[in-house]
């Protein structure tokens, strides 16, 4: 993987580790982005990890663009040598799949969809070769996901599932974006999942909804009191299917400030994953169950 560099105006440097998405590209871009942040290069104001790339924001009054480019390039060799091991955490996200709110929203924007006669779940299941939406949901919740990138708007995690490429769920975005998406919708576009942090426009297919807020600008929810955004790049997510009763229970627990998300530390070793993707994903899930 040879990183491609390009300036975004006089204040940004884009480093594209690879054109296509892969765990390797994500690991290298995260390692390089972290190295840039840790090296405290004079004039670097922000470092934004993305899926297979990262963006450095800098102040050209403090560092000449070419000098910055040289410094970032120097860190690439270091990232190439680094072991693909990530000490991170796995966050359990309860999901009410096929919920009434995202279904109602789908129906309002049906003419913007590839297949107006089926739901987003039915469409996703069919074009990915699943026999039923239950099988599709089982696959969606059946292996953990990486959060390579956080953003779009405040706190939205991009999600990349830990399965071989052939098993990656892929769906197109809506033909034209919706003007509305319920808050906390579980979405999917291309090979990426997401969780919408706030209500608003969106183009991803909608598979379900979580009762667990991931962004709280007022910082009233107990687990968002220290910081208003739950996810950071490098986190992992495990979806757990819940029904309407489970959904209502968590909504009630959140309202009464009793809810604590299940978060466990985990170490991800890329080499071990490649040896046995399905087995390794299971092991990570078990770590999340506290075994």
């Amino acid at each position, binding site marked *: 993987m040879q990183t491609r560099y*390009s*300036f*975004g*105006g*006089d*204040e*940004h440097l*884009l480093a*594209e580790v*690879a*054109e*296509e*998405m*892969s765990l390797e590209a994500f690991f290298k871009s995260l390692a390089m982005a972290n190295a840039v942040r840790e090296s405290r290069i004079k004039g670097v*104001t*922000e*470092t*934004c*990890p*993305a*899926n*297979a*790339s*990262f*963006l450095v*924001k800098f102040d*050209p*009054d403090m560092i000449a*663009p070419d000098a910055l480019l040289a410094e970032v390039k120097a860190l690439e060799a270091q990232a190439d040598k680094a072991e693909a091991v990530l000490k991170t955490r796995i966050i359990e996200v309860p999901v009410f799949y096929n919920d009434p709110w995202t279904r109602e929203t789908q129906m309002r924007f049906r003419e913007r969809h590839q297949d107006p006669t089926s739901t987003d779940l039915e469409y996703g299941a069919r074009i990915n070769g699943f026999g039923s939406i239950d099988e599709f949901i089982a696959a969606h919740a059946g292996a953990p996901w990486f959060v390579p*990138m*956080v*953003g*779009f*708007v*405040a*706190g*939205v995690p*991009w999600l990349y599932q830990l399965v071989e*490429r052939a098993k990656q769920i892929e769906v*197109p*975005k809506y033909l034209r974006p919706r003007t509305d998406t319920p808050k906390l919708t579980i979405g999917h*576009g*291309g*090979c*990426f999942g997401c969780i919408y*942090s*706030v209500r*608003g426009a969106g183009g991803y297919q909608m598979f379900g909804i979580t009762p667990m807020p991931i*962004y709280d*600008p007022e910082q009233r929810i107990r687990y968002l009191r220290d910081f*208003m*955004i739950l*996810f*950071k*790049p490098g986190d992992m997510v495990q979806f757990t299917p819940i029904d309407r009763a489970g959904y209502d229970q968590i909504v009630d627990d959140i309202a009464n400030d009793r809810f604590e998300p299940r978060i466990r530390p985990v170490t991800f070793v890329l080499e071990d994953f490649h040896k046995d993707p399905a087995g390794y994903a299971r092991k990570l899930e078990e770590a999340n169950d506290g075994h």
Partner: protein
Amino acid sequence: MAIDVVNPGFATTVQDLGRPGYYHLGIPLSGAMDRYALRAANLLVGNDEGDAGLEAVFVGPELRFTSDATVAVTGAELPPKIDGEPCPTWTALRVRAGQTLGFGVLEKGARGYIAISGGIDVPLVLGSRATYALCTLGGFKGRKLEAGDALVVGAAKRPAKEGKAVPEALRRRLEAAPELRVLTGLYWERITAESGKHFFEDTWKVAPEADRIGYRFRGGRPLALVERKQPFGAGSDPSNIVDSSYPYGSIQVPGGTEPIVLHRDAVSGGGYFMLGTVISADMDFIGQMQPHTSTRFVSVDMRQALAARHDRAQMLLRLREALG
């Protein structure tokens, strides 16, 4: 002291110089779209340059003051009126308790900046008072102003001299057809060489979809994308890339048809290719462009971008000297 919002205008928000440091989590810089204008307004009323003021889009608000204050209106030619009396822009004005600051019809530009001595005192959120309305963050309750809101104003920091004005040469010219300078790059190679030429030859008009997140442009020829097998994860449309971070000022062209320039409330990333980035020196101008304004994009190199940035910094130094 407080200010009562009698009429909020079209989309008036509390803004300062923004909230850097959280773009990697999707929280954009926010703050005044025309930063120079906000700085000038603050300097006129004796504030620090980065104090919070109001950004009024197209239509000014109507504000009733409960105590005396000095105010200044800069940026767009949005003529202020005190109890109905027309007053000059770019000038320190005295408003007495009980008086109302209103506005005439917008003459030029798009965004007026209203500074009030002492600055608007809303809570600091992640180090800034700027409003990021898309995610209900900061500013006054995370939203644009509404009738009946009461804004708290801080204590004046230093005396302001009524009638003090920004010299004509240091006011931004609001041209009828401004040019926006662009450094090509990022995913520039996604479009054909011919389309690259067209992009800079054609005249583009600001579309009605132009706000703090981004400005959309119409009227140029559609851009042809270089054919390729789409990389895994990029999505099927040829204008899609594997989702990456979006620089402020970056120009994305979904489907190759309508360029969008991201601004202070930028979405921080996504899956559309970008052909380049408007240089930092020209970002303030965009905030003063009304819908239907004609513009051309002009290609510059890094050296020219930095020279333009230097010129803007010099202008700010002269402003500080003039008002210091």
